[in-house]
C-alpha cells in the first residue's frame, strides 16, 4: 500500500505541468515514504475524447454559478468521478491528497470529495494549496449550498466541517505532510526559516506527452515563496507569509538534473518573483550560465515573475548573467504609469525604474511581458493620463521586441485579505455590501467609480490597439466584466446613487 497519492484536479490548464505533486513526492520519498502522483485533469480531457471544446465546456461548469451541462457532458462528468474512484480502488493509499490550487478548483474539489467519501468513507483525505485558505469562490458558492456564516469561512474549513476531508494544510505542505505521515497529526503550519531546500522532484508518474503542446512546455520550478514586497492589491503576503528562498545552487542543481533526466530545457519559476534575493539569483545564474556554456546543444532557458527594482539595486553584471543563464520572457508587474499610484500601491518602484529595467533588458536581449491594471483606488484622472503616457514611453521597447506583450488586467479588485481590503478605513474607501472587492467608492477620488474604472480598461485597450502594442487575454478579462455588469448593473447603480 502506498503512503500517499498527490492528486491534481480540474480546473486544469493542460498546457501547464504542475510541479507541486512531483516536488511533494520527492520530499516524502526522501523521508522513506512511498508515494505516487496523478493528474486527473488529463483523465477528464481523455474522457472528452481529447476534444478541447468539450473539455472547456465541462471546465466552465466548475467556475460558473448555476451552469447546467447537457446530458452528454453530465455523462462524461459522472464517468470522470467514477474513474477517480476506480483509480483509488486500484491504487490503495493511506492518504489521498488533493491540491486545491485556486478558487477555480473549489467546485470540482467539492464534488470529487463528496463522491470519494460516499464510496470510500474510511479513505483518509488531505487537501492543501492556495485555494483552501480563501473564502469559497463567490461564483460557485450557490452550487456548494453555502448558507449564512459558511459564506465567510475559508474553503478548507467548509470542507473539513462537512467531513469531506480529514486534514487541511494551510500554507506550505512540505513539513506538515512529513509530520502527518510519520505521526498521523499535523501541528506544523508554516516554515519559519528564511531558507528552504528541496530534494530532487520525482516526475516519473507524469504522462508528459498527454499535455497540450508538451514539447514547448516550460516545466515549473520553485526558487522562493512569498514576496519581498507587500503591494496593496496582492494577496501573496497573506498566502505565503514572509519571503523564503532556496539557495541558488539548490535551484540550479534541480534544474540541471531535471533537464538531464527528463529532457526538458525550458523552465518556468513559480515564484512570485525571481529576483527577491539577489545573492541566490546571482549564484543560480552563474551555475546555469556555466552549464549553458559547457552544453551549447542543450542550453537551458527559463522565465518567471520579476520585480522592477530601483536602478541602484540591480548591478549590471546580473543582467548579463541572467541572459547567459537563459532568462527570457520575464513577467514584470508594471501596474501603473503614475508614480503617485505606484507609491499608494506600496510598489516601492517608479516608472523611471521600469524604463531603466527595459533598457537593461534590451541591452542584454532579455524579453519581458508587462502586467498593468487600471482603476487603483488612488488613481485620479491625471494619474490615468500618466498611465496612458507610459504606453507611449514603452513603445521603443515594444517595437524592439524587448516587451513582447502587455496584459491590461482587470479594473482593480480589492481582494480579500490584501492590504487594500484591510485598510479600507484608512484609505477612506466605502465598500458595497454585495461585492466588497469590485464595487467600492472613494469620496476623495469621486471620479473613480466602477463605471469609470471599466471605461479606463476599455480606453487602454483602444489605446494599445492604436499603438500596435500586443496585448493578451483581453477576451478572458473583458468578457467576465461585461457579464458581471449585465447581471449586476442595478445593484451597482443603487450603490453609487446611495453613496454619492
Amino acid at each position, binding site marked *: 500500500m502506498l503512503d500517499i497519492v498527490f492528486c491534481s484536479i480540474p480546473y486544469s490548464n493542460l498546457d501547464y505541468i504542475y510541479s507541486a505533486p512531483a516536488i511533494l513526492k520527492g520530499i516524502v520519498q526522501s523521508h522513506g515514504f512511498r508515494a505516487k502522483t496523478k493528474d486527473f485533469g488529463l483523465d477528464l480531457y481523455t474522457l472528452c475524447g481529447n476534444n478541447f471544446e468539450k473539455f472547456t465546456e465541462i471546465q466552465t461548469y466548475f467556475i460558473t454559478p448555476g451552469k447546467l451541462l447537457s446530458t452528454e457532458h453530465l455523462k462524461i462528468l459522472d464517468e470522470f468521478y467514477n474513474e477517480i474512484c476506480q483509480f483509488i480502488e486500484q491504487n490503495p493509499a493511506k492518504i489521498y491528497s488533493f491540491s486545491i490550487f485556486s478558487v477555480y478548483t473549489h467546485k470540482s474539489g467539492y464534488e470529487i470529495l463528496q463522491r470519494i467519501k460516499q464510496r470510500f468513507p474510511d479513505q483518509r483525505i488531505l487537501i492543501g494549496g492556495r485555494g483552501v485558505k480563501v473564502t469559497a469562490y463567490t461564483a460557485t458558492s450557490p452550487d456548494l449550498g453555502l448558507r449564512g456564516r459558511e459564506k465567510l469561512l475559508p474553503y478548507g474549513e467548509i470542507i473539513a466541517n462537512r467531513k469531506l476531508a480529514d486534514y487541511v494544510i494551510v500554507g506550505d505542505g512540505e513539513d506538515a505532510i512529513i509530520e502527518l505521515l510519520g505521526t498521523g497529526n499535523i501541528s506544523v503550519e508554516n516554515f519559519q526559516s528564511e531558507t528552504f531546500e528541496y530534494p530532487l522532484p520525482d516526475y516519473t508518474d507524469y504522462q508528459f506527452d498527454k499535455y497540450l*503542446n508538451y514539447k*514547448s512546455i516550460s516545466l515549473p520550478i520553485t526558487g522562493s515563496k512569498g514576496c519581498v514586497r507587500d503591494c496593496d492589491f496582492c494577496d501573496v503576503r497573506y498566502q505565503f507569509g514572509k519571503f523564503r528562498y532556496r539557495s541558488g545552487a539548490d535551484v540550479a542543481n534541480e534544474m540541471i538534473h531535471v533537464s538531464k533526466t527528463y529532457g526538458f530545457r525550458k523552465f518556468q519559476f513559480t515564484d512570485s518573483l525571481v529576483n527577491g534575493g539577489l545573492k541566490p539569483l546571482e549564484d543560480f545564474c552563474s551555475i546555469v550560465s556555466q552549464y549553458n556554456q559547457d552544453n551549447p546543444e542543450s542550453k537551458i532557458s527559463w522565465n518567471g515573475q520579476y520585480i522592477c527594482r530601483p536602478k541602484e539595486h540591480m548591478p549590471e553584471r546580473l543582467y548579463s548573467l541572467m541572459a547567459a543563464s537563459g532568462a527570457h520572457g520575464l513577467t514584470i508587474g508594471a501596474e501603473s504609469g503614475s508614480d503617485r499610484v505606484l507609491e499608494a500601491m506600496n510598489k516601492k518602484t517608479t516608472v523611471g525604474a521600469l524604463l531603466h529595467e527595459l533598457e537593461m533588458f*534590451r541591452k542584454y536581449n532579455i524579453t519581458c511581458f508587462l502586467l498593468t491594471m487600471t482603476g487603483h483606488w488612488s488613481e485620479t*484622472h491625471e494619474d*490615468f*493620463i500618466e498611465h*496612458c*503616457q507610459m504606453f*507611449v514611453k514603452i*513603445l*521603443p*521597447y*515594444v*517595437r*524592439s*521586441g524587448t516587451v*513582447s*506583450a502587455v496584459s491590461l488586467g482587470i479594473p482593480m479588485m480589492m481582494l480579500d485579505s490584501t492590504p487594500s481590503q484591510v485598510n479600507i478605513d484608512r484609505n477612506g474607501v466605502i465598500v458595497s455590501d454585495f461585492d466588497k472587492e469590485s464595487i467600492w467608492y472613494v469620496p476623495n477620488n469621486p*471620479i473613480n*467609480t*466602477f*463605471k*469609470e474604472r*471599466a*471605461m*479606463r480598461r*476599455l*480606453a487602454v*485597450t*483602444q*489605446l494599445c*490597439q*492604436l*499603438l*500596435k502594442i*500586443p*496585448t*493578451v487575454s*483581453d*477576451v*478572458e478579462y*473583458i*468578457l467576465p*466584466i*461585461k457579464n458581471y*455588469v*449585465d447581471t449586476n*448593473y442595478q445593484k*451597482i*447603480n443603487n450603490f*453609487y*446613487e446611495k453613496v*454619492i
Partner: protein
Amino acid sequence: MKKSFDTALDIYLNCENFIRSISTQKTVCIDLKVNAIMYQSAPRMVIMVDSKIIYNDYLCEGENSILLNADLLSENSSIKIGMREKTSQDTLVNDEGQILADNAIEIIWLRLDGIDIIQDYDFFRTHITYFLHDTEDYVAPLKGFWQNGDLAIEFQSPLILWYNERSTKNTGVDDTMKYRNILSTKTLMQDFFDSLQKLRI
C-alpha cells in the same frame, strides 16, 4: 479644435487625438554609438537636426558614444548623420585592389528617442535615405560610412508615433497565445461599451 479629455469615455471616443495630445515633442534625443576605423587621419562625423549642425568633430579610434538632445524647429523635421573629409589618402590599397587600411565609421546603434533605428531592418531599409557625396547618388542605406555621405530620416513629430505607424516589428502575439480567444476583441469591446451604458454613475 483642441479636445479635452476629462474622462476615460472622452479618451475612448477620441483615442487617436488623445494619443497625439500626450505625445507632444519639442526635442529629440540622439544616442549614437559608433566604431571609428582609422588609417591616416581621424574620420569626421557631422550630425544635423533640421539642417542645423549639432555635432561636427573628429572621432577617436574605436568606440565613440555620442548623446545629444536637440530642439526640433518644426513639425516636419529631419535628422542627418554623415561622414566628411575622407580623401583617397585615407584608403590603402594593394596592387590587387584589396583594401589594406581605411577610414570608416560603423554604426553600433542609433537610437532616436529610444528607438533603435538600425535594429528595425524593414523600417531602416524603407524609411532611411542614404546619400553618397562623391557620386551624388542615393543608395540602399548602410549601417555606417565607408565614403563621405549622409544617412537621413525625415519625419513628422512626434517621432515616436511617426515611427510606430511605420514599424511592423512585434505588432501581434503568437497564435498559441490566442487560442482561447473565441471572440473578436473589437466586437467584445463594443458589447462591453454598450453594457457600460447601463451604469448611470
